[in-house]
């Protein structure tokens, strides 16, 4: 009997498992690499955080000397921001964005692989300072002239500069890739205003990265020239200006805050509607608020510099206060989504609601800091440390865990255990607040940040002890999380294609999806194509627009609808 069909095969030769992961250009595998790599750095920087909190638990230097302490908080900040939060969210974006757009992969798969592999390289370079006489110890903001070779002669600071430049380059490459993917790879019917909110936040984030990160790279290179080739960009003794570094750093650094928080907002905006069984309240308002935050983020950098006496306070104070408006709109949109919903409190949903509660506190303290006279008192104190942790940890990291619990079933075909997840959430949530809420009061009472020791007479001992206990609770909460992940790999509950009754296209394919994601796409008439599929177009309150088209699209379809944007 003659055979007329040829079995489709993905590879014509067998590759080892390791080589496959090392050479992959599949956005899903790269996404997982990003996330795994990020968690590795999260644990490393978390250990440094415990070292810091242990040293500060009681007055006196008990465990480390001042230099070790300074290296610890510098590495903690640098690694957490540049090698955990940003790449973790990039990892989820890598995995999810093409799926949510109905695309087979990212626009530039090889660049995608390159931008990932620069990360562990950069991260290890930054850490390798420990092998060469000490890591960088000037704080993650690397203020000149403390980073000048005269005051920081160690090679650790050079490694920090090189590593950060590589990580920044990775970020820029990734941003280009996301922008191209989002503008060029959308499935037929997926107009800009039908894109899931997560994709919108990734798009705005990518634009921020593209505009802000090259500025940091330029600053880092200038600093490297100052340190190694006798430059004087930031050296005041030969005509340079140390305030220039602050301008450059924060011109990148403030958009960077939104680079860190916007994708987490996107994650939360995916999860809240699904587990409330309602659409996101005010989708377009949310999109415009995201764009507004992105635009405003470039006009507020000098609010980090109020105490330098070198910036025009009313302008930067006003612009900073303005950011409170789109942020407030988003908060109300989330609350409107919960309102009269049918809330299912899964672990992902708990982390999303935790994000709302904690980001709220970080947002409020941020608006307080926008007032220059208040900033004059609490700038560079633990109040700022509390504020930034409520934004980065209470916000972004809660977002990362929400995304982990939400998308894990899609990535691995198995659901994480819910009871264990809830144990993780509650220890994490309580520990987080114990660790960071007292810091508000410590800062108000005048405890400066970045000090390795404080006087027993200062009255800061009890709150510091509470904070340390909280930090260890956070560490303990990671144990059920890790057990959960391992147990799920061994014997997890199969997830099926769509375990959460999702709204967006990633749930329209198998878990995990096949190499090129979709065999067939459902029709796309709104930002919730799967909701349409399950509940029909005729649902009373669903949008009445463009219901005429039936049937599905194949991924290869190139037809465009008249109302498609771009």
């Amino acid at each position, binding site marked *: 009997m003659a055979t007329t069909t040829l079995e489709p095969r993905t590879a014509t030769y067998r590759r080892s498992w390791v080589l496959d992961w090392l050479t992959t250009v599949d956005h899903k595998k790269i996404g997982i690499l990003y996330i795994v790599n990020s968690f590795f750095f999260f644990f490393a920087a978390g250990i440094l955080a415990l070292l810091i909190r242990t040293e500060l638990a009681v007055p006196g230097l008990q465990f480390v000397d*001042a230099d070790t302490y*300074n290296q610890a908080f510098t590495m903690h900040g640098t690694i957490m921001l540049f090698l955990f939060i940003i790449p973790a969210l990039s990892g989820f974006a890598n995995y999810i964005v093409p799926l949510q757009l109905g695309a087979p992969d990212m626009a530039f798969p090889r660049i995608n692989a390159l931008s990932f592999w620069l990360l562990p390289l950069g991260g290890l370079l930054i850490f390798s300072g420990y092998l060469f006489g000490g890591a960088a*110890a000037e*704080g993650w903001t690397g*203020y000149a*002239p*403390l980073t000048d070779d005269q*005051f*920081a002669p160690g090679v650790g600071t050079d490694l920090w500069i090189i590593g950060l430049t590589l990580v920044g380059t990775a970020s820029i490459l990734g941003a280009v890739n996301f922008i191209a993917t989002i503008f060029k790879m959308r499935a037929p019917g997926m107009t800009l205003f039908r894109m899931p909110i997560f994709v919108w936040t990734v798009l705005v984030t990518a634009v921020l990265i593209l505009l802000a990160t090259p500025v940091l790279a330029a600053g880092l290179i200038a600093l490297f020239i100052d340190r190694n080739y006798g430059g004087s960009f930031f050296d*005041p*003794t030969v*005509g340079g200006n*140390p*305030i220039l570094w602050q301008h450059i750093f924060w011109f990148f650094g403030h958009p960077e805050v939104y680079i860190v928080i916007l994708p987490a907002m996107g994650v939360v905006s995916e999860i809240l509607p699904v587990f*409330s069984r*309602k*659409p996101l*309240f*005010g*989708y377009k308002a949310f999109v415009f608020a995201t764009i507004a935050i992105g635009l405003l983020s470039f006009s507020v950098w000098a609010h980090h510099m109020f*105490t330098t006496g070198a910036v025009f306070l009313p302008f930067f104070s*006003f612009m900073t*206060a*303005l950011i409170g*408006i789109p*942020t*407030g*709109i988003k*908060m*109300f949109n989330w*609350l*409107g989504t*919960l309102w*009269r*919903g*049918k*809330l299912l409190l899964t672990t992902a949903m708990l982390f999303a609601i935790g994000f709302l509660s904690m980001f*709220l506190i970080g947002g*409020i303290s941020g*608006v*307080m800091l*926008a*007032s220059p*006279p*208040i900033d*004059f*008192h609490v*700038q*560079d104190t633990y109040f700022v440390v509390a504020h930034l942790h409520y934004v980065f940890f209470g916000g972004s990291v809660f977002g990362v865990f929400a995304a982990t619990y939400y998308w894990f079933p899609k990535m691995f075909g198995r659901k994480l255990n819910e009871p264990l997840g809830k144990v993780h959430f509650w220890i994490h949530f309580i520990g987080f607040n114990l660790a960071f809420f007292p810091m*508000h*009061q410590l800062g*108000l009472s*005048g405890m*400066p940040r*970045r000090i*390795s020791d*404080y006087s027993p007479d*200062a009255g800061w001992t009890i709150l510091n002890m509470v904070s340390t206990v909280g930090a260890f609770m956070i560490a303990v909460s990671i144990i059920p999380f890790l057990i959960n992940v391992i147990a799920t790999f061994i014997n997890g509950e199969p997830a099926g294609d769509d375990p959460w009754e999702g709204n967006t296209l990633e749930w329209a394919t198998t878990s995990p999806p096949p190499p090129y994601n979709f065999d067939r796409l459902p029709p796309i008439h709104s930002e919730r194509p799967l909701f349409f599929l399950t509940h029909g177009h005729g*649902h009373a*309150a669903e949008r009445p627009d463009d219901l005429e088209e039936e049937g599905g699209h194949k991924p290869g379809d190139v037809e465009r609808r008249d109302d498609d944007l771009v």
Partner: protein
Amino acid sequence: MQGTMATSRLRRVLRIGAPLLLIGLLAGCLLPPEPKTEVGRDVFNLYVVVLILAAIVFVAVEGFIIYAVFRYRRKPGDDTLPVQLHGNTTVEIIWTLIPAVIVFILFAVSMVTLGDVEARSEEPGVIVNVEGFQWNWTFSYEDGPTVNAQGGEPPVLAVPVGEPVRVVLSSIDVNHAFYVPQFLIKRDLINLGENGRTNELEFTITEEGTYAGQCAEFCGTDHADMKFVVDAMPRAEYDEYIAALASGETPPPTGEGDCTTTIEIKANNTQFDIGEFEVPAETEFCIAFENQESVPHNVSIYDGGEALFTGSFLNEPGEIVYNVPALPAGDYRFICDAHPQAMVGDVTATE
């Protein structure tokens, strides 16, 4: 019946009382120290206004989140869809206006207070040049003495109470920040070169007393130890204090004592060139000290925490000969009072 009525009354009380209690708790706890300057009082009042606004927003939003979690929780087996509400333009306009109004109020009251904070008097009671360096302070009174750290204690900035005090802030190396928590204000010390711009702060202290201050801008290894004390005293007492300082400043006659034993010590890059020296016990000796950089240094000799000899400071490059009184046989330390961690060595007095 009565039980339910009592319960519902309790719930009503709780519903109104709990948020108020929370606002009170938040506002009661999260306060800066009691301000000890006139400007500090303005900042404190502004802070209280802002904190009340913040507490109201927090309780309203957090309250709604908690309410929603309990009120709208899905019942087991409930598979119905809630109303698919996509938005409501009126509501969205209103909730754009709410944060807008709040931030405009915040901005307006902040600018009023900012005017007070930045106000400068024509003739301040005292002008002090504050110089920061890794990791200590030098206070130079205009037309008056210069104060450095002494005896292992932070340097003391004596000022008159009830008069405007202006501090002119400069750094000779990296960034520092002058911060006294009880004054509710800080400002950076930035090295902008030889004739670069300096920062200024002005405050009028309202109450006698000593106030702890410390560097608030991370400045390297011993940042945590870069402390100072502001000592506010009545004008008359202040004048006496400064006069005493000024007279004590005249360096003791140099090289006139018994210099049969002379130890040479040089200071550069915040380091002594020697780590130890030996002198005969029960005999006066001399230290020929040379400061080779523009960072304040001195040499003092300590027995544990007790200063046996305190050398006067060289704030600029220069040389001085200290006459040191006789030491009983034993082990001592010599220290630069401005750099007690970085510049330490051993002294042995032998029979």
